[in-house]
């Protein structure tokens, strides 16, 4: 615990969770009393259109989230006006509208990506000053509104008709309650994300409700439990290297289950449970975090492709930490404590660049990294433009990877001292192998008749590949670079007609994306369903696509087999 406390990102996470706990624990009691748990869950998720707008128009995501949350609270307050206790249906209506608006904005208006995902999946490890300020503001608002309006919230919840008959107005105070919950939900977004917002806002209060029947005591205990679960969760996530948001949620659920169980158990069992819980946490506290610093230079690479090439070049001369995991979608990423620690200790940080992994800038800034971020994709020569700017999938042209290997060798060599010449040699060898692979893929694709070289994939990930190897990208199922957008019925109909008209032989689903839409499209247009391609990430260990070279060779084989109905194959020997 003590060594963790010295890390700036851990200190900020701790401050964030403690600041949030006051508002979350306090409002949690009102949420439980007034039956607003669903609203709480919904309002965080319903910030989606605000985040898309912020990303598309270029203002702070927090403002977008806040604006959306306030509108959602006002909408629910307005719709639920006639039946103050029937917020459920009103919430469902507003949530549905907000999500639909978000999807339309994301798919058809902006085609946005990164900023949206990081907020929907927030992380305690990457909170910034704005997040801390927002958490403090949410807690101050929760305390202030509770002090002023708490008695009215209580009276209206206790006996609505009598409160009305007494002239206790409920609409104004109830809307303020919804707004305070919305503000807290947005505050919690940055820490644990929209999907786990209730872990801090509802679970601690629901747990303490089991053991106390006094409002004041319940409120104080809920704040205490929210803080304790937040701190313990952050600490456990540091020790076990799990994402902190999920750890807090699991811990909160476990404490609730234990307390509920202890309620029905005898005194002795209860004492034993308490001792076991404290001992478990203490044991975790004495455990030390996983060590990464083995004396060698530390290199961080964001994507699976970069991790693969960097490991090959570094050999034993440096320790390489790869942040994204195989078969994962790079558009969704929640850092683990070891990731942030690795970034904070890194001597060299390698990013793919071209907006694919912009989040690394936030992580590096929050971790207090000493190293600059080298965006390898910005240094490679071949630049293919798409409608949305430079294609970020530069590694699908093997000549680009050869250039990237040389760049990585140049940047890594000065960091490894005596191993510098060896690193340069390995980088040059890798580059040569990549060039041979490039030639082999080109030869292989050339087997496909020229008018049959037409590509339809899940999303626009193969513009660079197509440009280099003489294929034509006819269309993509999702006509946006992000996997977060959705295809409209009109898009699918247009693409179906296009596939028929162009006589496209096969549609290729991607590995990290749900293949059902691509399959349906192929069936409808009378095309074959090709094998699945490695688009954004490499495959898991042991699969043909576990290395970059293997994945490119496999892609070439899959495409040639698909476009020639299996009559031609690519048998490219591993480099």
């Amino acid at each position: 615990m003590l060594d963790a406390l010295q890390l700036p990102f851990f200190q900020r996470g701790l401050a964030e969770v403690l600041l949030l706990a006051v508002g979350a624990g306090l409002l949690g009691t009102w949420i439980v009393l007034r039956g607003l748990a669903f609203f709480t869950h919904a309002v965080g998720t319903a910030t989606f259109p605000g985040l898309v707008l912020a990303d598309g128009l270029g203002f702070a995501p927090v403002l977008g989230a806040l604006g959306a949350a306030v509108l959602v609270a006002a909408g629910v307050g307005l719709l639920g006006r006639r039946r103050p206790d029937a917020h459920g249906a009103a919430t469902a209506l507003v949530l549905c509208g907000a999500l639909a608006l978000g999807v339309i904005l994301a798919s058809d208006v902006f085609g946005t990506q990164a900023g949206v995902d990081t907020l929907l999946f927030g992380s305690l490890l990457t909170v910034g000053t704005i997040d801390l300020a927002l958490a403090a503001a949410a807690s101050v608002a929760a305390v202030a509104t509770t002090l002023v309006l708490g008695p009215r919230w209580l009276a209206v919840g206790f006996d609505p008709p009598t409160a009305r008959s007494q002239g206790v107005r409920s609409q104004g105070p109830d809307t303020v309650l919804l707004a305070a919950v919305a503000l807290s939900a947005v505050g919690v977004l940055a820490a644990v994300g929209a999907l786990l917002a209730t872990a801090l806002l509802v679970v601690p209060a629901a747990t303490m409700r089991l053991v106390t029947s006094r409002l004041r005591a319940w409120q104080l205990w809920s704040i205490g439990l929210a803080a304790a679960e937040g701190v313990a969760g952050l600490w456990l996530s540091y020790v076990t290297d799990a994402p902190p948001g999920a750890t807090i949620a699991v811990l909160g659920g476990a404490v609730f289950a234990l307390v509920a169980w202890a309620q029905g158990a005898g005194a002795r069992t209860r004492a034993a449970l308490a001792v076991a819980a404290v001992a478990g946490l203490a044991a975790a506290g004495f455990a030390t975090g996983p060590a990464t610093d083995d004396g060698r230079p530390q290199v961080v690479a964001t994507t699976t492709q970069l991790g693969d090439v960097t490991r090959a070049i570094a050999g034993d001369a440096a320790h390489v930490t790869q942040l994204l995991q195989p078969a994962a979608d790079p558009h969704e990423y929640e850092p683990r404590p070891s990731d942030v620690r690795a970034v904070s200790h890194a001597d060299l940080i390698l990013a793919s660049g071209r907006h694919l992994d912009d989040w690394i800038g936030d992580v590096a800034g929050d971790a207090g990294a000493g190293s600059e971020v080298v965006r390898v994709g910005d240094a490679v020569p071949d630049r293919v433009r798409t409608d949305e700017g430079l294609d970020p999938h530069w590694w699908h042209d093997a000549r680009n990877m050869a250039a990237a290997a040389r760049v990585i060798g140049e940047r890594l060599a000065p960091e490894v001292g005596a191993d510098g010449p060896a690193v340069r040699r390995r980088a040059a060898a890798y580059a040569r192998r990549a060039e041979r692979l490039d030639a082999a893929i080109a030869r292989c694709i050339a087997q496909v008749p020229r008018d049959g070289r037409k590509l339809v994939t899940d999303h626009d990930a193969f513009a660079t590949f197509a440009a280099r190897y003489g294929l034509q990208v006819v269309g993509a199922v999702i006509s946006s670079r992000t996997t977060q957008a959705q295809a409209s019925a009109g898009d699918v109909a247009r693409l179906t007609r296009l596939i028929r008209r162009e006589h496209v032989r096969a549609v290729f689903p991607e590995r990290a994306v749900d293949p059902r839409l691509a399959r349906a499209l192929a069936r409808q247009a009378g095309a074959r369903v090709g094998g699945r391609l490695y688009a954004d990430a490499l495959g898991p260990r042991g699969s043909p696509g576990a290395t970059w070279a293997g994945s490119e060779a496999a892609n070439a084989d899959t495409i040639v087999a698909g476009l020639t109905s299996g009559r031609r194959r690519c048998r490219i020997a591993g480099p």
Partner: protein
Amino acid sequence: MTLVRAEGASLGYGPRPVLTGVSFAARAGERVGVLGPNGGGKTTLFRGLTGELVPLAGRLECAGRCGLVPQTERSRLDFPVSALDVALMGALSWLPWWRRPGRPERDAARAALSRVGLGDAAGETFGDLSGGQRQRVLIARALVQDAPVLLLDEPFSGLDAVTSELVERLLAELADEGRCLLIATHDVDQARGWDRVLCLNGRQVAFGPPDDVLDLDTLEQTYGGAIVELPEGGAGVLPPHHHDHGAEGA
């Protein structure tokens, strides 16, 4: 002094009235039994008196506040509130919205709880109290509201004989202090002991001292066909919630 006055009042939830022709006056110190079948308009009258419903015709006036004492089942028994917290809710009716109840209100709530004989139970959780105690806490809330008129919705339902007696005595004392009490009840015999009765069945059937008003004819008009179905032999007139027992006996 007249505290409640109705002149040809009609009340309803839409354009159609569910209670018509209400004309009566109740004075300070009086207990008025409000009789009628379920759906006869007792609760509607109370909602009109608290100002929740505006009369469709005629006039309905209450001098000062009307404190509603609902049936205890209408409250959330699972709420983490003490008897004192509930009594304190009465203060919200006259505090401005930005003021939370402070020490004076707290003292008033304690005094009200002592007044209903629950001074020692102020810290008890509301849901843990007995039915009679809960009823008295709700009366205390109306007292904190400082209302000269109390509207009690079946305050004796679900109470045993001893507790009933206790509440009955409390109501007598509150009336003696100069309040006007309107008590909705199904117990005709109990209402005979009060100062006035108001019989409602979609309209005002009768109003006056119980001895003058509570004859068989009025009760038949008040409770409709329910009476003729009752088995013979009962000396008094049985109100409709005894109907089930009659059916069992048949």
